[in-house]
Structures are given as structure tokens and as C-alpha cells.
């Protein structure tokens, strides 16, 4: 690595590094102190077992999960998906083993990695934004500014009647659900491999073939499963919003 070589340009930590650390500390202290001086941390009424505030919102960093809870059963949205996100994050350095494009912002060499990660990050913050700003009482969709004042956890909606759920949810027929899941996952796993075969006629296929060769089958499977899981989450959300499907596949023990 360039930075390990003896002739790599270096400067003494004192004062150049210390200076940055010192300034950051002062800046952050001022920012945190200033915000705390102006904005009070929320504190609602004393906890009451029998009264749930409407809406009851999680802190912003968990709102993404709370939003997913609308679309998935708790064991998926609350247990499986967070675990899988963390495991997937931990797996990143073990599936992306190419030592290239290190120590700089490398979009050109790692288009797939950067777009996949960015999409995940975008999804996380998009869910947070929807939950934080577009969900009101009874977790219905509301428009910020028009339906209620933005910010704060005390909800005032003078003259605005509470929205009522009118959507009737149904389940996708099991045979259709099973077929969609199988087609989605089996197809998602194999289609790129089939696409690779036509590498003579498509440039993209050739690039993919090259990429696959470096990855190997195990790493490819790990990556592709995570890609499909992420797309599957998006897919289920869209299915709910467009067709009102509560479950895609139901069994006596669990539903998806």
C-alpha cells in the first residue's frame, strides 16, 4: 500500500493531527451545547400502562424498523431483518475481497458495491423519512405541513379529523405466492448466471462474467441472496401499497 511505503508524504502528528482533533472537539462541543441550549429534549407525560399515545413513534433511528412493521410480521421486521442487516454488513469485507480501490473514493472500480450499499442506506433513510414525517395518528399516511405541524411528538390537529383505514387487506393466494417467491429467488439466483452465457454478444454480460470469475460461487451466492432479500423487502412493500396484500404466503405457523 502506498501509505505504508517509506517515501509516502507524511507530516508529524503534532501539530497537524492534534490540531484537527482539538478543533473537532471544540466544534462538536459548541454544536451539542448550542442545540441543547435552544431545543429541549422531548419528555412526555409519565408512563401509563393503559394509554398509548397516538401516534407512538420510536426514536428516528428505529423508525425505519417501525415502518417495516406495517408490512411484515414482527418476527421478520423486528428480528430477522435487523439481524440480517447486521450480519450482511459484517460479511462485506469477506465477500468483497478485491484489495483494489482502497483508501480513496473509488466509484469506477466498484460500481456494484457502491450502488448496492448506497441503495441500502437510501432505503434505510427513506423508511425513516416516511415514518417520521408522513405517518400520523394510528400510523396512517398524513402530509406534513398540510395535515399537522412538523416536528415534535405532541400532535395537534385542530379541525382535522382522524383518518380512518379504508383499505381492506387480503392475502395473495398461496399458489401464486409460492410461485412468486420461488420464481423470485431461484430466478434471481440463476438469471445472472444465464446472462453470463451470452457474454459474446453483450458487453455487460462480459463484465459480469469477469466479475463472477473473481467472486466464485460461494461469494456470489452470499451477495445475491442479500440483493434479493433487499429487493424482496421493497417488493413486498410495493405489493402491499398497490394490491393490498397482507401476506404473500401463509402457513399454519408463520406468514410471509
Amino acid at each position, binding site marked *: 500500500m502506498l501509505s505504508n511505503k517509506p517515501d509516502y508524504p507524511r507530516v508529524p502528528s503534532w501539530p497537524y493531527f492534534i490540531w484537527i482533533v482539538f478543533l*473537532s472537539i471544540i466544534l462538536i462541543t459548541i454544536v*451539542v451545547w448550542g442545540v441543547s441550549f435552544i431545543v429541549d429534549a422531548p419528555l412526555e407525560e409519565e408512563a401509563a400502562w393503559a394509554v398509548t399515545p397516538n401516534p407512538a413513534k420510536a426514536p428516528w433511528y428505529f423508525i425505519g424498523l417501525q415502518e417495516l412493521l406495517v408490512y411484515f410480521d414482527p418476527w421478520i421486521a423486528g428480528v430477522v431483518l435487523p439481524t440480517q442487516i*447486521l450480519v450482511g454488513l459484517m460479511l462485506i469485507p469477506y465477500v468483497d475481497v478485491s484489495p483494489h480501490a482502497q483508501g480513496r473514493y473509488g466509484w469506477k472500480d466498484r460500481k456494484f458495491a457502491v450502488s448496492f450499499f448506497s441503495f441500502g442506506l437510501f432505503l434505510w433513510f427513506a423508511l425513516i423519512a416516511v415514518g417520521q414525517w408522513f405517518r400520523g395518528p394510528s400510523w396512517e399516511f398524513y402530509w406534513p405541513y398540510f395535515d399537522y405541524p412538523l416536528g415534535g411528538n405532541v400532535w395537534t390537529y385542530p379541525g382535522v379529523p382522524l383518518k380512518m383505514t379504508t383499505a381492506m387487506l387480503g392475502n395473495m393466494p398461496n399458489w401464486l405466492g409460492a410461485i412468486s417467491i420461488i420464481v423470485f429467488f431461484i430466478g434471481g439466483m440463476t438469471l445472472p448466471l444465464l446472462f453470463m452465457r451470452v457474454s459474446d454478444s453483450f458487453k455487460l454480460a462480459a463484465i459480469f462474467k469477469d466479475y463472477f470469475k473473481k467472486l466464485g460461487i460461494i461469494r456470489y451466492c452470499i451477495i445475491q441472496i442479500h440483493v434479493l432479500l433487499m429487493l424482496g423487502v421493497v417488493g413486498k412493500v410495493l405489493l402491499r401499497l398497490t394490491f393490498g396484500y397482507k401476506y404473500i404466503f401463509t402457513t399454519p*405457523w408463520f406468514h410471509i
Partner: protein
Amino acid sequence: MSKASPEHGGDRKPGVIGTVWKLVTNNFIFRTVFRTGFPDTMLKRMAVMRSSFLMHILPTKVGVHGLKLYYTWCMGGITFFLFLLLTLTGVLLMFYYIPEEHRAYNDMKDLLYMVPYGRILRNMHRWGAHAMVFTVILHMARVFYTGSYKTPRQFNWVVGVLLLTITLLLSFTGYLLPWDQLGFWAVTVGTNMAGATPFIGFEGPFSELLGAQIDNDIRFAMIGGTRIGANALIRAYVWHCVGLPLIASGLILFHFYRVRKDGFSGPL
């Protein structure tokens, strides 16, 4: 050892501040504490970084690319500083907070209205915690986009993900402590999700295989009861103030040790 440094004396006659400064620094005792003297030469600059307890966490020399703001965003360091800030404000808050079902909320009100600087301490602790979650995410994004998790730093990325988890758990446990509606219901919902864990949660799929019930499943162990109550509060308190910070400190030490040994990631 060195004489007083040129900045603080030289040929000009020192003023009052200069004289006092000289009195304080230019003596035997001060030099037992700061043994290198003011780091005005390259040699002393190296020496101070190597021999000082606080500075030793940083390397003596750094590559210039690693100092660029657009490269690091300073996010790792800022996260760590926020951790320290939260420790400080948190310990101060502990002086006025009793984690008891009927007492906790009143203590919050006292913090707001009766305790000197209680309100700003609480605000700093809350907003600092929000900021820390955000900076952790930004730090992770930066490390990803610069490919800094690649060899030889793979495992340090894993430790980083664990630290992200710990940060979220710290926020989660801290959320219950004010014992207000906001935290109470967030934690109710959060722990009920744990109750929906397959096999080991009483509401999860296949729970009947292991005989998981409301009073013997994973959720019960988390909150120490069948509902959020006094047991859950004291558990959240102990995890928030002792357990998780200890784990976080251990992981942070490891994280920094690895960063220190491997240096900033650099282009090949």
C-alpha cells in the same frame, strides 16, 4: 532538559503572563509531568507523541491523505468524542436519577426545573446520543466508500458493526429511563418484537416446540417480567450505565488498537 521555549521568552523582556508562564513551566516539578517540553523541534514532536499517555493513541507521523477532511470526515473521532461527552453528562445525570418506577419520572421533572444545569445536561445527553448514532452511520458510510474495510482491516470493520449495534442498544436502553410515554411505548414495542423471535419468543413462530411462554422466553429475560415495570427499568438502567458502556469501551479499545497498528487506509 530544555530551557523555556523561544516563543515564550527569547531576547524580549517577558510580560506578566510570560513571567508567570515561565514560573509554572520552567521548574523541576512541571518537567516531571511534561517531560518533553514544548514540541517545537521535529525530535520533540516525535517524542511527545510517543511518550505522552494521551497522545500515544495517535501515530507520531501521519500520511497527508489521511488528514484531508474530505477523506475521513473526522467521523470516527467525533463519534468517540461524543461517547466521552455522553459518559460525562451521563455520570452527572446519575447523581440525580433514581431508577424506580414511581420515582424516575419525578426525577426527570426535578432535572428540568430544580437541578442546577439539569436541563442542559439532559438535553446534551439526549441530543448527543442522537448525534452519535448519526455519526456512527456516517463513519460507516465513509469507511465503506473509501474501501477501508479491505485487507488487512476486515475484522476491524466487523468490530465496527458490533460497535454500531452497541450504540443502538445504548440508545434503546436509555430511551426507557425517563419513564415517560415516549420511551415506555417505544420499549414496549421493541421488547415485544423480541417476544416474536422464532423458537425462543413466546409469540414467535415455532415457540410451542420449545414451550416458550410469556414467563420463560427471551423477552422475559430481557425485561425481567411479563410487562414493562420496575424490573425492566432497573435492567435498562444497569445495561445502559454499566454493562453496555463496558462492552463498548472494550470494543473501542480494540477498534483503536487495530486502527493504530494498521494506520489510515491508503491507495495502493
